[in-house]
């Protein structure tokens, strides 16, 4: 994933989305950031499951991400 030609691993210190590929314990999960795998802490997100996309900030998942942007696009189309 690129944001204006900056690869995500360059700005991993900031918040970025990744996909949970395995739950290791109540607190730990392995997340795939487009090929880069990293263990993260999932204690701040209720019911994090394998397959969920999550936003990671400073080593912690802070929220689940909806895979589809449909709602957003519907809302914006209505606005425009």
């Amino acid at each position, binding site marked *: 994933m690129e944001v204006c030609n900056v690869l995500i691993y360059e700005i991993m210190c900031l918040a970025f989305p990744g996909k949970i590929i395995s739950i290791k314990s109540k607190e730990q999960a392995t997340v795939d950031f487009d090929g880069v795998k990293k263990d993260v802490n999932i204690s*701040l997100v209720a019911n994090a499951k394998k397959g969920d996309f999550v936003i990671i900030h400073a080593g912690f998942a802070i929220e689940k991400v909806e895979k589809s942007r449909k709602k957003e696009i519907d809302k914006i189309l209505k606005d425009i």
Partner: protein
Amino acid sequence: MDKIKVLKKINRLAKEMGRDVNLMEVCGTHTQAISRCGIRKILPKNINLITGPGCPVCVTAQKDIDAIINLALNGIPVATYGDLLRVPGYFGSLDDAREKGAKVFDVYSIEDALKLEEKYSGLVFFGLGFETTTPMTAWAIKKAYQSGRQGLTVYSTHKLFLPAMKALLSLGEVKIDGFIDPGHVSVIIGEKPYEELNAAQVITGFEEEDVLIGIFMLLKQIKNNEKKVENQYIRVVKKDGNKSARKIIDEVFEIGDGNWRGFGVVPGSGLEIKKKYKKFDAKRKYKNILDKIDFSRSKDPTGCKCGEVIRGIMNSRGCPMFKKVCTPDNPVGPCMVSVEGACNNYFRESK
């Protein structure tokens, strides 16, 4: 939805409004996204993007920087997030202290600090940032409490973000027509807290299209004289935010007065460790060292305009030192040090 289509809409609205419109972004990651994507350059001339106090490293008060450097120089191991190490204080930077033999570590996550503490007993974590990083610090303190070990201690400079936005509005030094609300602070606090600001606001994501759509939504509000809190980033920011994260903050921290570079002390904007967890509060544990520090010299570096830049009353390019004396390789103030700082981003944008 493509970029060109949104830009056309923005251009149309800007033309219809026909006056200067000031939009402020108050999140370091937005500052980065705007610079990296060159958004300032593609917007109509009358739409100004102003950078506000969204960079956590930048708003950390000089006094707190000097306090942590003194703890390190007194032989106490210190860990914190990357950029802070290079911020110059009166007594040098944490990096300088490390060169003098102090044990200073930069960590990606507070979990790394917990591991370091097992090796470097008495380690202090310098906790900085807003609602986005506070839950992790709270988690680590609770973890240490539950383990029954002394574990690490925390020097908290954590801050609540909304009081800074209120301070900006009440100071009234810069005309702000609308705010691009901070995306990841919003992940935690949700949409509602912003309503009390009574200002046009849009919570938006960090991709180019997100920012442009956010700007369009904001312009539409301003044109219609509306003062709403809209959320463009609904794929991540839930209306009520992240309750688990807020719960853990409330468990461990209580509200105090926060000290901000650029603003000074803002009542009710700081987060201090609750009495229950006082064993983990570095300000209590190392009080004898902290009390001896002469903070009378903890002022912004001579000539540094970071305070004005943080309040949005000066553009980085207006600082006489920008690019001449002050560069990312030789930063005078934190706004040039941090990758989220206004000066650092404007520098890279202008290259």
